[in-house]
């Protein structure tokens, strides 16, 4: 039998912390998509000194997303930060292993493999690590 004491609702501080992260991350990603799809294309400015800054413009909102994530992780308690660090370590290891594999395969194939494979592998490793640590 369950009672009100079995409620799984987090406390107000935890909800506030999560809401701040969600809003910050969502705004950063919205800005990223805005810059990526509606900003001027760096190819249109070939030869201009603005080409490189424009090509790197999407990095700015990603930086905000990173800052939001760092603030979120710093606000986690001892148990949560341990879990997230384990998941991040797995993601990092998978990304590094993929980078080495991609590097060796680039020698074999004439067409270089796309570098986003490393990003996807790292994020997938992080997600898999997060699921594995949550189930333990």
């Amino acid at each position: 039998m369950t009672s009100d004491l079995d409620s799984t609702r987090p406390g107000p501080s935890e909800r506030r912390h999560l809401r701040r992260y969600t809003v910050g991350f969502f705004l950063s990603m919205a800005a990223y998509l805005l810059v990526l799809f509606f900003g001027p294309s760096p190819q249109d400015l070939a030869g201009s000194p603005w080409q490189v800054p424009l090509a790197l413009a999407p990095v700015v909102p990603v930086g905000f997303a990173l800052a939001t994530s760092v603030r979120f992780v710093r606000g986690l308690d001892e148990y949560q930060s341990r879990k997230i660090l384990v998941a991040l370590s797995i993601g990092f290891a998978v990304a590094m292993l993929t980078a080495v594999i991609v590097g060796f395969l680039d020698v074999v194939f004439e067409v270089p493999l796309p570098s986003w494979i490393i990003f996807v592998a790292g994020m997938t490793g992080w997600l898999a690590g997060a699921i594995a640590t949550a189930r333990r």
Partner: protein
Amino acid sequence: MKNTIRSLREGRGLTQGALAEQLGVSRQTVNALETGKYDPSLPLAFKLSALFGQPIEAMFDPSTPEPATPASEES
């Protein structure tokens, strides 16, 4: 490690979220403590002790140690 946190919490009519709020941790952490999946740090154990007015050794039962791992054998 087995502990009496759940019964102490319920005895005070607190939800996991409410206890987490008082301890300054997440509800998930309180759940992990209650189920014995996670052993608290010393500062958190002292917070629990102060909150429930019980000595740490009365709340935690170390008589069910986890099997020794190679890492713990070395230290």
